[in-house]
C-alpha cells in the first residue's frame, strides 16, 4: 500500500487560512495547547527538581526510609509512576476532547468547500 501521505490532492485546494480562522479549529487548538503546555511544564519542573535534589541534596536523598531503600530511590521510582500516569491521562484526554473535533474538521475539509466567513457550504462535495 503506497499511501504517499500527506500531500494528496484531497487537501490541495483547501483554503487553510480560512480553516484556521474557524471557531471549530480555534477550539481544537485551544484544547490541545491548554493540555500539553501546562503538562509539559509540570513534568519538566518535577524532573528538574528531582535532578537538582540528586545533585545538591545528597544527604536528604540518602535518608533511609525502609531497609536499604532511601528517599532518592523512592523519588526516582515516582518519576516512573508520573510518566506512566501522564501518558494515560493524555491518551484519555485526546480520545475524549481532541479526536472527535479533529475528525470533524478533517471530514469537513475533505468533503466541503468553505465560504469567505469560514462557514462551510454544505452539499458541495468534491
Amino acid at each position, binding site marked *: 500500500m503506497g499511501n504517499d501521505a500527506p500531500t494528496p490532492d484531497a487537501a490541495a485546494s483547501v483554503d487553510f487560512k480560512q480553516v484556521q480562522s474557524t471557531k471549530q479549529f480555534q477550539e481544537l487548538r485551544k484544547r490541545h495547547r491548554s493540555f500539553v503546555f501546562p503538562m509539559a511544564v509540570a513534568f519538566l519542573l518535577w524532573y528538574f527538581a528531582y535532578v537538582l535534589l540528586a545533585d545538591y541534596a545528597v544527604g536528604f536523598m540518602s535518608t533511609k526510609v525502609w531497609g536499604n531503600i532511601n528517599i532518592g530511590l523512592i523519588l526516582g521510582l515516582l518519576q516512573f509512576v508520573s510518566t506512566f500516569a501522564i501518558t494515560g491521562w493524555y491518551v484519555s484526554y485526546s480520545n475524549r476532547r481532541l479526536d472527535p473535533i479533529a475528525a470533524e474538521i478533517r471530514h469537513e475539509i*475533505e468533503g466541503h468547500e468553505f465560504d469567505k466567513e469560514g462557514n462551510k457550504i454544505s452539499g458541495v462535495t468534491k
Partner: protein
Amino acid sequence: MTLMVPAVNVADLKDTTLLNMGIFGLFVAITMVIVIKASRNNKTAADYYAAGRSFTGPQNGTAIAGDYLSAASFLGITGAIAINGYDGFMYSIGFLVAWLVALLLVAELLRNTGKFTMADVLSFRLKQRPVRIAAAISTLAVCFFYLLAQMAGAGSLISLLLGISDWGGQALVIIVVGALMIMYVLIGGMKGTTWVQIIKAMLLIAGAAVMTFWVLAIYGFNLSDLLGGAVETSGNPNMLNPGLQYGKTETSKLDFMSLGLALVLGTAALPHVLMRFYTVPTAKEARKSVVWSIWLIGLFYLFTLVLGYGAAALVGADTIKSAPGGVNSAAPLLAFHLGGPLLLGFISAVAFATILAVVAGLTITAAASFAHDIYASVIAKGKADADTEVKVARRTVVVIGLLAIAGGIFANGQNVAFLVALAFAVAASANLPTIVYSLFWRKFTTQGAIWSMYGGLGSAIILIALSPVVSGAKTSMIPGANFAIFPLSNPGIVSIPLAFFLGWLGSVLDKKLEDTTKQAEMEVRSLTGVGAEKAVDH
C-alpha cells in the same frame, strides 16, 4: 543472610565461544529470512523509507522500543549502575521521562506534517533549500554519534565473548558487524529493519525479565536485601546514594545537570526515532506507538535497576572493570553468573542483535535523509524520480556503514550510555528548538531555524571536542593530548539554551516575513491530520 559470591572467572568465557557464536548465528539466520520475506513488496520510496505506512501502533511501538533500547540502555546503563550505583539510575529516568516530550509535543503533529524525514517537517513552512540542508546535516551528525556508541558497544561485547583484547581482533569484529548491518538495510529497507526491531525488542525485554526475576529470586524478592548485597560486595554504602560519580566537585555536579537536560530533551529530536512515526498510517496510531513504547521502555528500565545492582552484588565492580569490555560487560557477566554459558550466549546474542538492529535503523535514517533531503531536493532540485532516490539511498547506506566501522574502531572502550548521551545532547541542541518553534510559534522564520540548527549543532560539537571526553584525561579518546578547555563532558547545559535563544533571536531579527498561508496549512494539518489520514468516507 549470608551469600556466597563465587567469582566469575573471565577466562572461562572463552570455552563458550562456539556456543555464543552458534546462538548468534541462529538469530542472524532467522532475522535474515524475515527481512527477505518482508522486503518482497518494497517498490516505492514510501515502501523503502516508511515501510509503506503499513505498521500498526503496537507493532511500531515495539519497534520504537527496539530502536531506543540500544546497547546503551542494556549494556551501558547496567554497567553504569553496577559501578556508579545511583548515578547510573539517572540515565534510566532521563531516557524514560524524555518520552513525554515526544508524546505531548512532537509525535502526532510530526506524523501529520511530514513525509519521510525530519527535514520534511522543519522545511514545511520555511525556505526549502537552506532549512532542508541544515536539517539533513544535523540528522547525519546525530546518527554518526549514535552509531559510534553502538559500534563501541559491539567492540566491548565481542571482546568479552571471544576474549579478544587486542586492538586488531576487536577491529575485525566491528568490521563484521558493520558488514552485516549494511546487508540488512540494503535488503530489507524500513520494513525489514522494523521487523528486526520488533523481534529484537521482544527478545531483549524477555531476556532482561528472566534475569531480573532470577536476581530478585536470589534475594527472596526483597529489593532492600538486593541493595544491601550491592553495598556489601562493593564495600561502599554510597552505592545507594546519589553523587558517587557526579558528586565529587562543583564542576561534576554541573555536568550531572547538563546530562539530565540532554537526556530529557534529546529523545524527541532523534531523527531515527522521529522517522519511525512515519511508518504508521495515522496520527492516532502514532500516539498508540508512543504509548506502547513508553510502557515497554519504562518496564525495561525498571529491570535495569535490578540488573545493575544485581551485577554489583553478584559479580562485583572490580571483576566488571577488569573484564575485557570494561563497564559495558556488567550485563553479560551477570548472565554468566546466573545461568552459565547458555544464558550468557542468549543474552550476548540479544545484545549483539540489539546493536545490529539499532545500527540498521540509524543507517536507514541517515541514508533517507541524504537521498531525500540533499540529493533529491537540493542536488537534483526535485527532478530525481523515486527510483533514483532509492538507489542513492542504498549507496549512501554503504558509505555510512563504512564510516560507522571506522568510527567504531576508534570509540571502542568508552561507556556506551555515555556516548549515546552525547548524541542526545547534539540532537537536543540542533533539532529540538526548531521542531518546537516550527510547530508552535507562528512568528518563527527561516533565519531563526538556520541560526538555531547550525548554532546548536556547532556549539555542541565544538564543546565536545574541547571537553575531557576527547582530550586531557586518562579516559579520553586522545589521552596523550590536552586541549580540554571546556570542563563538562556533556555540552547540553550550554548548547541547548543557546540553540533556543538563537532560534528566537534569528526570528525577531529576520526582516523577511514567512508565508502565512503555509503557516496556516501546517497548523491545520498538524492538528487535524488533513491529507495525512486515509480519506474518511463522506
